C-alpha cells in the first residue's frame, strides 16, 4: 500500500466531546480524502484536500472540519461528537483527483 497510517486506530468517546483523527502519508500524494463507512452505505466522502491548505466538502461534511498544514498530514475534527458519527473512518490519498486512491487501515470511532 501507499504508506498511509491513521491514528488512533480505535477510539471511544462521549457525546459532546471534540475528537481529532490523523492521517499521515509518506508518498507525497497531492490529494487526500476522508471517508466514513457505515453498513449498507459503502464509503461516503466527508472532506478532501487538493493541496496544502486547500480543502473542500464532500457528500457528508456536516459536523466535520479538516485541516492540512503540510503535504503529509490531513486531520479530521469532530467539534462536538454525536452518536450518529459512530463509524469507521478511512483516509485515502491519490496523485490525481480522478485516479486510483490508496487507503489507510481505518479508525473505528464509537461515540457513546
Amino acid at each position, binding site marked *: 500500500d501507499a504508506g498511509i497510517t491513521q491514528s488512533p486506530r480505535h477510539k471511544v468517546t462521549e457525546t459532546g466531546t471534540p475528537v481529532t483523527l490523523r492521517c499521515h502519508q509518506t508518498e507525497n500524494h497531492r490529494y487526500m480524502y476522508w471517508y466514513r463507512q457505515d453498513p*449498507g452505505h459503502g464509503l461516503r466522502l466527508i472532506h478532501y484536500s487538493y493541496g496544502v491548505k486547500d480543502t473542500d466538502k464532500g457528500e457528508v461534511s456536516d459536523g466535520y472540519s479538516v485541516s492540512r498544514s503540510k503535504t503529509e498530514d490531513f486531520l479530521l475534527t469532530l467539534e462536538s461528537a454525536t452518536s450518529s458519527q459512530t463509524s469507521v473512518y478511512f483516509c485515502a490519498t491519490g496523485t490525481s483527483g480522478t485516479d486510483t486512491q490508496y487507503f489507510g487501515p481505518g479508525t473505528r470511532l464509537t461515540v457513546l
Partner: protein
Amino acid sequence: AQSVTQLDSHVSVSEGTPVLLRCNYSSSYSPSLFWYVQHPNKGLQLLLKYTSAATLVKGINGFEAEFKKSETSFHLTKPSAHMSDAAEYFCVVSDKQQAGTALIFGKGTTLSVSS
C-alpha cells in the same frame, strides 16, 4: 451525475466454483472504474481498474472485469473461488471530468466462500 449500483448485496459460492459480482454504473462522461476489496477489519485494497485502454481488465489474485459500455456494466469475475476470497467488494466510479470530487462507491457485495 455519477452513480454505481451493485446488484447483489451478498453472493455465496463454493470453493472452486466461479465468482460473478455484478456492477452497473452511470456516468455522464468517460468514466474510470475500479473494484476494491476489503477483508474483515482491514482497509481497502485495489483489485483492478479500467481507464479506457482495454475493455477486459486483469487484476490481482485471478480476478478480472469487463467494461461493457452498451450495458453500462463492469462485472467482476474469477474462474475458481478460494476461501481467502471471502470479503466485501466495492465497485467504484470516478468521473474524469471532475477532478477532486473523489470516488463514488457502490454499497458493496459480501462474498462468502464455503468449503
